């Protein structure tokens, strides 16, 4: 394990490097291989699906297949949510085209991998389409997103779209066991189950949990260790804040909110996203209640983007929970 | 000295003063030889100028929007607070303001 370049995070260490090493995505891999038979006619690609299902892995594998060991010289990796706007994206692509060697042997283009492009606004996507057009001689784009429906039609029509579905639990467990074996640790079945449940189909999440758990207990990962790790990592404060709000204790709920914002620096929209996730996990809410709460959350999510003070918007959201919560108490009691 | 805003006479003035009067919003009818006020944008300055010409303080009468009669600002109890005192604008005469009967007649019109 020593060399500096060898990946130390297991998500990277065990990431398949070539298309053939990828397990479980046969259809996609076969189609892509077909496209790459004649690289000159390879279209732009769109990889769509929930997080942790192999999109980035495939994109990077394509880069390696096309360009070999020096693939980094011909590949630009961008993340739409990190860039400040479409103008910076355009700048970075321009700079990249200027400084990279445009073609590699048979392959007349370089690769631009743009992740999280469903986070881009409509106008930004329109601009992106133009960028794709003007650089189509020298670049191919691989667009990665969670929801292809958020991508405007003109871009979709220019791409070959591949959909990545949630990994099934068995497949995930096999992955984890495979890694555990290579790392010389024992992964107990209950522990594996717990990890898989916690990660909700996101393999990256699962591998991180495994790696952290193994650091806590050398040699053997049991479900107690996993529980400890998950407990540390999962946003229990958010659940606490939500529950207090639903049960009408606004002031305590808001105190928890300030703690979350204060000690972790999460932005208002990040917290709202966590709230959405937590609501869906809560087993004492009916599906109808979850849907209704989700609508309220969506409303305030939008206001957050427009408003001046995110703590005010979050407080207002918690207050709406307080009003809603009356119903929760009643149904809970009725059970 | 009370003037009628629609038509008032002034003694003969030099060209400069005449031009100034026009500039400040006056109009002059050559046939009848009377001045009238065309624009109220500079009314204060205009009044000052006219007062200067006549060597006498000039006031205009107000017309009451309720009863229609003309009255002088001097009768009005708010004249200390009023920023448009003695200027020929519409107003409400003290009687109409106080008088309930007139008030109700006025309201009938709506």
């Amino acid at each position, binding site marked *: 394990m020593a060399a500096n370049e060898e990946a130390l995070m297991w998500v990277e260490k065990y990431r398949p490097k070539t298309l053939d090493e990828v397990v479980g995505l046969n259809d996609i891999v076969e189609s892509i291989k077909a496209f790459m038979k004649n690289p000159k006619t390879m279209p732009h690609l769109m990889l769509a699906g929930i997080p942790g299902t192999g999109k980035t892995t495939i994109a990077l594998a394509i880069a390696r297949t096309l360009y070999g060991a020096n693939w980094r010289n011909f590949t630009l990796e961008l993340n739409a949510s990190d860039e400040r706007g479409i103008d910076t994206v355009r700048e970075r692509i321009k700079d990249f085209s200027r400084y990279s060697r445009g073609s590699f042997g048979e392959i007349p283009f370089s690769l631009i991998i743009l992740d999280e492009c469903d986070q881009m606004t409509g106008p930004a996507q329109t601009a992106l389409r133009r960028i794709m057009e003007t650089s189509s001689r020298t670049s191919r784009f691989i667009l990665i997103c969670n929801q292809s429906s958020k991508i405007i039609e003109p871009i979709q029509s220019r791409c070959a779209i591949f959909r990545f579905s949630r990994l099934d639990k068995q497949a995930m467990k096999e992955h984890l066991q495979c890694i555990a074996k290579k790392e010389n640790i024992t992964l107990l079945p209950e522990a594996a189950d717990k990890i898989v449940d916690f990660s909700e189909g996101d393999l990256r999440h699962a591998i991180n949990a495994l790696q952290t758990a193994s650091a806590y207990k050398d040699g053997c990962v049991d479900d107690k260790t996993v529980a400890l790790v998950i407990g*540390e990592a999962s946003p229990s404060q958010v659940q606490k804040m939500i529950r207090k709000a639903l049960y009408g204790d606004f002031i305590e709920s808001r105190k928890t909110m300030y703690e979350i914002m204060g000690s972790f620096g999460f932005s208002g929209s990040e917290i709202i996203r966590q709230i959405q996730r937590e609501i869906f996990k809560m087993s004492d809410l009916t599906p109808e209640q979850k849907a209704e709460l989700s609508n309220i959350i969506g409303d305030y999510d939008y206001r957050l983007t427009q408003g001046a003070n995110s703590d005010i918007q979050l*407080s207002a959201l918690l207050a709406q929970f307080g009003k809603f919560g009356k119903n929760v108490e009643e149904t809970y009691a009725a059970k | 000295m009370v003037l009628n805003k629609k038509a008032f006479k002034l003694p003969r003035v030099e060209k400069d003063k005449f031009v100034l009067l026009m500039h400040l919003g006056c109009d002059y009818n050559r046939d009848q030889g009377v001045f009238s006020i065309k624009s109220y944008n500079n009314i204060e300055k205009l009044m000052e100028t006219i007062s200067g010409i006549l060597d006498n303080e000039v006031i205009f009468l107000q017309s009451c929007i309720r009863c229609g009669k003309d009255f002088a600002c001097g009768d009005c109890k708010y004249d200390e607070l009023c920023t448009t005192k003695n200027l020929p604008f519409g107003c409400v005469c003290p009687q109409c303001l106080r008088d309930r009967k007139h008030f109700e007649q006025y309201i009938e019109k709506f």
Partner: protein
Amino acid sequence: MQRNDLLWVEKYRPKKIEDIIGNEEAKASFVEWLKTKRKSKKAVLLYGPPGVGKTALVNAAAREFSFTIIEMNASDTRSEKAINAVAKPATSYVALDNFSTNQTKGKGNLLFLDEVDGIAGNEDRGGVSAIIKIVEEALTPVIMAANDPDVEKLRPLKKVCLLIRFQQIRIPLVIALLQKICLLEHVKAEFEALERIAQNSRGDVRSAINDLQSLSEENHSLTLQDTAMLSSRNKDISMDDTLRGFFSSKSIAEVSSLLSYSSVDYDDFLLSVSDNLPRRYTNPAELAAAYDFVSQADVFRGRIGTEYWHLLKYFFNNLSQAAAVNPQSYKPFEFISPPIRIITLFWTKGKRTMLDGICGKIGAKCHVSHSKAKHDFVPFVKMLLQKTKNSFLIAWFEFSPEEVDFLVKMNRF
């Protein structure tokens, strides 16, 4: 619970030109200008103190003569670009028969630039000259309004406009208007009380009507005694007084009036309101309703930013409604003031930058965005480093010693 949601300034907004009190001469000049198809000057500038009928006249005239108003309001970005985007198309269409017939169909556009003295010098890059150009090329009436036309930057503008001055509305006229409203609202008011309101308003009809409403709405009566409150309105009201008045107010109009006279900083006030709201409304349903309004006020504050001040009325409108959700449930309470900004206390810029840097390094090595790094990786990396200061891991990520320290010491969330 009887609560009048409609502000009287809205309800009694003049619909016809003749309903606008005062400034008869200004009204006449304006109408004549419109009628003669602006033969003298292509644009008109209405100027004078606030609340005397400039905007009301434009609206009433548009209504009466069937024009459509295209408005570019106070301190909207009035850069050349923005002006051309809106004003050019607005003024290039003209209906064939503006005035003479009885056609009820729309007779074309009026471009209305309110609060034109709000055009700042540099921010509005070329704003004033763009307006002049529009005026020169316009086929439809261009109307401007300002409080103070003597600002230097408007000088070139004045050359192309017909100037029409509006004066403060005289006290007897204001009283007469208040009398009329009292009659229509079935309010029994002492003459001296109306007198007091009119005197206090300094010729601003809008604030006179607001004062009338807030003082008389609850009991539908008004005595001179009730107007004693008015004298304090001219003085600046402090934050505590404003908060107190805000939370204990009994109607929207009362709050509106209070806020318009108070000189508190809007942003601090908004935060203080949010801090204190749960103390005012202990009933969850009321709290939710009030917070909904505060949230909308905040949205408007966000939209105002540093330039769109004409949206301020919606900001105040929503705040006012937050105060008046249920006047009956008011019980005096202890305020929190100044506003709590725990977030800024804990989370300094330095810390944010540090975390950002860490997320960037994680993102680069693991092919994820900053945000994913923060959510999905940081908790685990933190734990990994806490358990064993794995030097290989640190080297791989290229973390600095400060960054490692930061990660390890970060609180659980």
